[in-house]
């Protein structure tokens, strides 16, 4: 009985030490320096290979701009073709290309809960004015349980905004 108690204490202590070690390791890991971007131009979503309905394309574009304006931490967000973007300093251009699209069904989702998911896969490329690539990322937007199919575009916009917030800064 005493041996069992001692061994359980040992397991607990080992777990605590392991957790502390992991935490310390995580703290020690240096975060990559954020790229300076005081302005961002968002280009219209392209789908060269995948046939994407127009409402999805427009919805993704509009959601992305709105999310970046509200939560992206970028001072100015310009739309494609905006003449004011040309004079902006530290301009980053975001180009997105759809690489995968599966249109689900809201009816199936609401009736079965598990079937009818909608998902969109997008390859995002962040580049500077000269066309030099600064960052590339694959983002997925999904709607699994509740909401219309266009909610997947909101999910994509949120995920992309998170990437922007983590990698770009207006000050540094």
């Amino acid at each position, binding site marked *: 009985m005493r041996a069992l108690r001692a061994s359980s204490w040992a397991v607990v202590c080992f777990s605590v030490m392991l957790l502390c070690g992991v935490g310390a390791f995580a703290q020690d890991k240096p975060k990559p320096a954020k790229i300076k971007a005081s302005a961002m131009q968002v280009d219209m979503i392209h789908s060269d290979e995948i046939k994407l309905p127009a409402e999805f*394309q427009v*919805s993704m574009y509009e959601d992305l701009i709105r999310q970046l304006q509200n939560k992206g931490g970028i001072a100015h967000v310009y739309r494609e*073709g905006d003449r004011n973007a040309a004079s902006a300093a530290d301009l980053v251009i975001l180009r997105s290309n759809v690489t995968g699209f599966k249109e689900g069904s809201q*009816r199936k989702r609401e009736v079965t809960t598990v079937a009818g998911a909608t998902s969109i896969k997008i390859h995002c490329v962040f580049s500077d004015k000269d066309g030099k690539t600064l960052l590339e990322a694959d983002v997925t937007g999904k709607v699994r349980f509740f909401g219309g*199919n266009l909610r997947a575009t909101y999910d994509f916009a949120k995920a992309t905004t998170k990437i922007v917030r983590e990698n770009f800064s207006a000050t540094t």
Partner: protein
Amino acid sequence: MLPCTPSCVVDRSAKIHEFHGKTISAKMRAAQLSEGKVRETALRNRSLFRLGCLAAVGLMAASSNFAQQPVTDAAVKVVVVKGLAGVKDNTKGTLMIGEGSMHFAHEALMSDLGTHSIEDVVTGDDSQRVIRGTVGTLSWFAPYGAGRFLSLFRSKLDTVTIKYRDADGGLHGAIFTMPVGQAEVVKKDLLAQGAKTTVTAEDLAKTPAAATPDAKEKQ
């Protein structure tokens, strides 16, 4: 037999009735009553038939007038799903196209967009739950999966997606939903007023999926 009038009080076996001071036989009284009823029923049927005919003619006239009426004269009830400048998402209102612009009105809110700034107009289809709003939300808590069952009942919608440029040249996109059959009319009117499109009627005819949009279900 029931008493003919409150004053006519006789027992069931009586064969003579006192009717408004006159004495008539029970058989005559019954014959008069049945004849009157038949005449009344015939008159009622005839008037109902006439009313039905009038209603049918009125409905036919109204529907033919509605079909011939151009959209530029009549406002189309639409919902702005997203993207129209100065208008909140999912705002209901009316859309009018004419004089080189597209007007969207919701109560005091007005939004004008020059049709020449519209670079692309694409139509589509969609569906929505018949029971929606607060009642629709509450239906999800109904027992025995009634909420799920109600989701099977959906109404079809048309969608119109446009891309347009603002004064600075910035590209915008807007999505509208409207009753079935209105999208093509709105698109035609927008094109007539100077808007452009990348999807023509020939393109739609070529793609079988687009030709039968009801086959798929979106949103």
